[in-house]
């Protein structure tokens, strides 16, 4: 297994376990490789669009559907609060974890309270709609906005 694959797997394992992104030091310990090699692996994963790094650094910004920074879409699952990048990702996290979860946010359009609840692998009925402002072929032109 090549190092970048091992690093990618460990990033997701850590995100799932804690809701937060691992540091380079934590990744280095987890995969048993020098930090410089881990940083190279992170850059490769960023270039491959498998992770999003904070520009000019090797800090993880996003490991879709997870965000490493606070967002408008917190996803509570048990004792852990995950941070989703968008409404789509807020629904992806419970599906990916296979766990019940809730997101309380506000409609980005009208500011009305919005609650997304997933139980037993199903989204509870809601009148909410999701707006994809950016077509998929342009997702990565500005992934932060997307």
């Amino acid at each position, binding site marked *: 297994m090549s190092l970048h694959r091992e690093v990618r797997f460990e990033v997701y394992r850590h995100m799932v376990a804690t809701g937060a992104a691992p540091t380079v030091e934590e990744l280095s310990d987890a995969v048993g490789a020098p930090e410089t090699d881990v940083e190279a692996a992170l850059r490769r994963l960023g270039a491959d669009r498998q992770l999003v790094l904070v520009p000019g650094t090797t800090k993880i910004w996003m490991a879709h559907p997870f965000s490493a920074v606070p967002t408008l879409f917190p996803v509570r699952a048990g004792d852990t609060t995950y941070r989703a990048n968008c409404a*789509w990702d807020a*629904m992806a996290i419970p*599906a990916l974890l296979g766990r019940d979860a809730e997101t309380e946010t506000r409609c980005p359009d009208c500011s009305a309270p919005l609650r*997304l609840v997933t139980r037993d692998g199903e989204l509870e009925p809601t009148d909410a709609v999701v*707006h*994809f402002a950016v*077509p998929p072929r342009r997702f990565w032109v500005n992934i932060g906005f997307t």
Partner: protein
Amino acid sequence: MERWCAKRKQARGEVMPAAQCYELARRWYSGRLERDFERPTVREMEATFRAVGLTGEFWRLEG
């Protein structure tokens, strides 16, 4: 929606019910936590869109 778009000078994109988005999310991220995950190909991504009823120019990834 129009207000959100106007504020950001952003054209209206595509709007879907949350349930359809959930189904897209479930399929799109399938396998992401696995050790040997491979990023889907463009064809596979387009097939995922089609499988949940998302068709048309907006969802096309390449010519």
